[in-house]
């Protein structure tokens, strides 16, 4: 706990520094655009190319800023050992943080929002860790072109969970249950049990994570 708090504190400070770096890049690119704006192409023939480049810098600043925003939020996650959270928001943040998993495996990660909020009362760092772990396990298993859809779930007893539904790519079909048989699924089940969570099949191509 102390270690994760320390990690979070340092990460939060660094995201703040990085925001300042992006702010300077953004203003410098903006100033260049301002200076080029009124100039005539006959005086500066590369004007449009430069404006185009400045536009790309702008887009990347926005992208970097969005990433830092989520990373900053994430860095504060260990501040509470237990917290009530809207599970839809937790899923959205986790998917944002899992973009690398998605990109490396060529798998689409999507969420389906619930009609009414499902509240999760759990350790916020652990919930994200378990969700991330599931995606890390599932993405290479289902393979390129597939989709993993996450949906917040409320059980009859009021507890919360997440349903993972996988869809094969247009050119293939698969059975998730069969895939799990040849995988390290058993080890993953044990890992989740030690975190007081459980995972199990829920229909043909779905898995349920219960917190």
């Amino acid at each position: 706990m102390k270690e994760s708090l320390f990690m979070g504190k340092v990460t939060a400070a660094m995201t703040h520094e990085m925001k300042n770096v992006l702010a300077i890049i953004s203003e410098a690119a903006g100033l260049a655009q301002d200076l080029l704006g009124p100039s005539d192409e006959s005086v500066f023939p590369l004007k449009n190319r430069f404006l185009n480049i400045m536009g790309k810098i702008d887009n990347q600043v926005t992208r970097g800023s969005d990433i830092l925003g989520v990373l900053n939020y994430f860095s504060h996650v260990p501040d509470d050992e237990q917290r009530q959270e809207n599970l839809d928001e937790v899923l959205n943040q986790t998917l944002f943080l899992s973009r690398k998993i998605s990109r490396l495996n060529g798998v689409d990660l999507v969420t389906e929002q619930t009609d009414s909020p499902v509240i999760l009362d759990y350790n916020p760092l652990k919930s994200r860790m378990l969700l991330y772990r599931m995606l890390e396990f599932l993405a290479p298993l289902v393979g390129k072109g597939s989709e993993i859809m996450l949906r917040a779930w409320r059980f009859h007893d009021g507890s919360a969970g997440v349903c993972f539904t996988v869809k094969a790519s247009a050119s293939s079909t698969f059975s998730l249950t069969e895939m799990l048989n040849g995988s390290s699924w058993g080890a993953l089940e044990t890992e989740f049990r030690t975190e007081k969570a459980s995972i199990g099949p829920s229909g043909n191509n779905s898995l349920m994570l219960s917190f």
Partner: protein
Amino acid sequence: MKDWKVLLVDDEKEFVMTLAERLGMRGIKVTTAFSGEEALGTMETYKPDVMILDLMMPGMSGLVVLGRVKRLYPEVEVILLTGTGSASEGVTGMDQGAFDYLTKPLQIDELINKIGMAVKKASSAD
């Protein structure tokens, strides 16, 4: 826009100088300070319409500067700059009298729009 007087306060010198130049190109009179202490010193002789104030600075923090400004010069409107993705710092600042807040990196049009609204509020209070 030409009559707007802005005091820009941030310890990131390159950010301040570049943004000041951009605002100046749009006809806004900009004075700069690189710390809270320097900003308060400047305000003893120079009264801006709007102060653009970074929240996280070494020495006197943005919130402390905000408190002093609102006590000594309540007619000056303050727009806060936050570096984090979280809105909580900005909202805290607004509870303490700031006109509004923006998150870095800035969109120049959004900043100018906010300065305009703050100037309007400051002049309607005169």
